[in-house]
């Protein structure tokens, strides 16, 4: 793998690890910590823990759909005329 590939690859690994740890602490660990502990100010209110992934998922589906439409549009052939 080229240096660029390695950079992108390990960057993806680090990003997804960070995201997983943050989300796990948010969802699973925080409810068991008293609400006057300082750690709560690093995390958004709990409702966002559902709305942000749902909206991100919808955006993903939107982008995939737009991509499919663009590719199919570019590959359309004019209908053959038959004698």
């Amino acid at each position, binding site marked *: *793998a*080229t240096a660029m*590939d*390695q950079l*992108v*690859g*390990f*960057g*993806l*690994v680090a*990003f*997804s*690890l960070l*995201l*997983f740890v943050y*989300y*796990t602490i948010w*969802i*699973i660990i925080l*409810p*068991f910590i008293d609400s006057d502990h300082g750690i709560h100010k690093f995390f958004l209110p*709990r409702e966002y*823990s*559902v709305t942000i*992934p*749902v909206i991100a*998922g919808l955006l993903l589906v939107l982008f995939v759909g737009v991509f499919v439409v663009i590719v199919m549009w570019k590959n359309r052939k004019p209908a053959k005329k038959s004698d």
Partner: protein
Amino acid sequence: MTKLVQWLCGLALLGTGWATLALDPLGLHLPLPCRQVLWPFPVYLLVAFGCYSLATIGYRLATFNDCEAAAKELQEQIREARADLSRLGLKF
């Protein structure tokens, strides 16, 4: 029974389990932190799966074994084939 039906049955089972614990139709009244963890649990599993997929893709991209010599040889053979075929009259 097809694989799809099996997966759907498994999902339906897990979904029913989650709904029984989260929507509380039996009036069990679990402690509050447990209910706070339980509510977003399906979304949590989805996000965790997404993170795992992303990490696997990134890791396999970074550790992929390129074959430089084979790639160059292949490009050379493609060039030769093109020259050969266009000499014989095939249009590219």
